[in-house]
């Protein structure tokens, strides 16, 4: 592609530098500080004290950290896996344009526009003792994590469905017609046409899911604050309460670095794809 102008007018440098400076000041600079703070002990008042890798060593003996890691892994598998499978299933079911399909799509999509806090309140009303349940599943350490997961899924499925619907639209209908002529069953069409053609959407959904899972915070925070007894704690909620309630800013920063490391692979994959298409 040829550029329409080889000499760049100075004002355009400003067009780039101002947004870059804003992002640099509020994102890149704080991010670097975050990595540095992870190597310190800091209460937010007296100056941070450098402790090297002590914060990371502390995680090894921190039972709450272990719970948070396990729960984050469960969250990744269940929240990610179930929303991907249900989202794809609903997209395939609602893929063909026919009467009433718009209404069904809208019904699944409506929760996507709710905030996670509103979503969690809606489900807290449903979970109240004396309703469907005798006692709230949020109050029981054995069920709290899953009771939080259901509302999160309820909101995510419609989103993943939209991503897959966009992907399905790109498949040449001729392929299905040819398969029908050859006498292919519904499952064969899915297995040999739909699935292979969704390759790039699948990788996008995978990145979205991993990034969203690691970022999940609102729904847990508003329903349980990670409790009872840390039973629904995720790394994100543990990081937040460590920072802003226990005021252990150094340890909290180290927890944030752990989240970053877990997300790193996906971020890089995402950027590589963006780079190739750019």
């Amino acid at each position, binding site marked *: 592609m040829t550029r329409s102008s080889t000499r760049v007018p100075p004002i355009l440098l400003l067009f780039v530098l101002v947004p870059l400076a804003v992002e640099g000041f509020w994102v890149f600079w704080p991010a670097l500080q975050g990595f540095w703070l992870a190597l310190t002990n800091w209460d937010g008042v007296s100056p941070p004290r450098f402790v090297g890798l002590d914060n990371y060593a502390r995680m090894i003996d921190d039972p709450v950290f272990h719970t948070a890691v396990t729960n984050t892994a469960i969250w990744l598998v269940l929240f990610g896996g179930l929303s991907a499978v249900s989202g794809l299933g609903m997209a395939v079911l609602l893929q063909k344009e026919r009467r009433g399909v718009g209404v069904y799509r809208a019904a699944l999509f409506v929760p996507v526009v*709710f905030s996670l806090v509103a979503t969690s309140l809606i489900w807290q009303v449903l979970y109240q003792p004396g309703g469907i349940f005798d006692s709230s599943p949020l109050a029981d350490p054995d069920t709290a994590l899953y009771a939080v997961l259901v509302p999160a899924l309820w909101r995510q499925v419609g989103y993943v469905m939209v991503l897959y619907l966009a992907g399905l639209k790109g498949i040449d209908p001729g392929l299905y017609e040819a398969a029908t002529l050859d006498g292919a069953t519904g499952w064969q069409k899915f297995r040999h046409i739909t699935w292979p053609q969704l390759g790039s959407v699948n990788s996008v959904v995978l990145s979205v899911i991993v990034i969203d899972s690691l970022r999940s915070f609102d729904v847990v925070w508003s329903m349980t604050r990670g409790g009872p007894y840390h039973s629904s704690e995720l790394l994100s909620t543990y990081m937040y309460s460590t920072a802003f309630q226990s005021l252990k800013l150094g340890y909290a920063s180290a927890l944030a670095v752990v989240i970053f490391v877990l997300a790193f692979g996906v971020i890089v994959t995402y950027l590589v794809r963006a780079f190739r298409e750019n």
Partner: protein
Amino acid sequence: MSNRVFHAVAGTISVLWLLPIVAVLVTAVRSFDDIAANGLASFPQSFTFAGFADAWTNGGAGAMWNSVVVTVPTVFLSLALASAAAYALSRFAIPGRRSIILLMLAGNLLPPQILLVPVSKLTELLGIYDTLFALVVVQVGFGLGFYTFVLQGFMRAMPNEVQEAATIDGAGPVQILWRIVLPMTRPALAALAALAFTWIFNDLLWAITVLRSSSVMPVTPALLALQGQYVSNWNVIAAGSVIAAIPTVAVFLRFQRHFISGLAVGAVK
């Protein structure tokens, strides 16, 4: 799949999906006494907007105003800055343009947790902690990379001829952006505006990171406070969630097509 089977399956799922919303709407218009006496699961014996009135007068109205004060400037500033950057990066030979675009996108993909402590301290240092201004600038900074990335992809796809013709006619780069490129980018801008509106309006994490006083809290964090204040007043809590959902549902219904295409564009890049 036959039509009848399809509608039976899709219809059942849709009804199940909407059931929680119906339950909350019903709870919101019941009276406290009715719920207290008969239980949440009982058939409603009352119809009143008292829950809405309580939620609205006890912080709801102020929170809604705070949300407007945060959301409107944030959406506007984000898209203005992102459009300028995207225009320069997509239509001109800026040195290192590919690296700049990816760097900006990378910033948006960072888990916000790594930024929380430093950003909160930074706003304290600047004396803007606990102000809506802080929330606006933080969210503009964090969102910019994504908006710039989507817009530059869109602007790159535009034919060169229009810009060349305008250049020959003596139009400067700013005029070309304002008169030609931005109008042609309208669909992408509308999609991003609808998306950004929901994200910013629904935000909890940034708000509770840079704000403390209940008087400055926008709707989403205020809803959490309402829950603490009205423990087991389920009609008020339900009414509060309904109020909090109205603006984003309205934007979604009004800009449905843009909204959906925005989500798809956002992910399927």
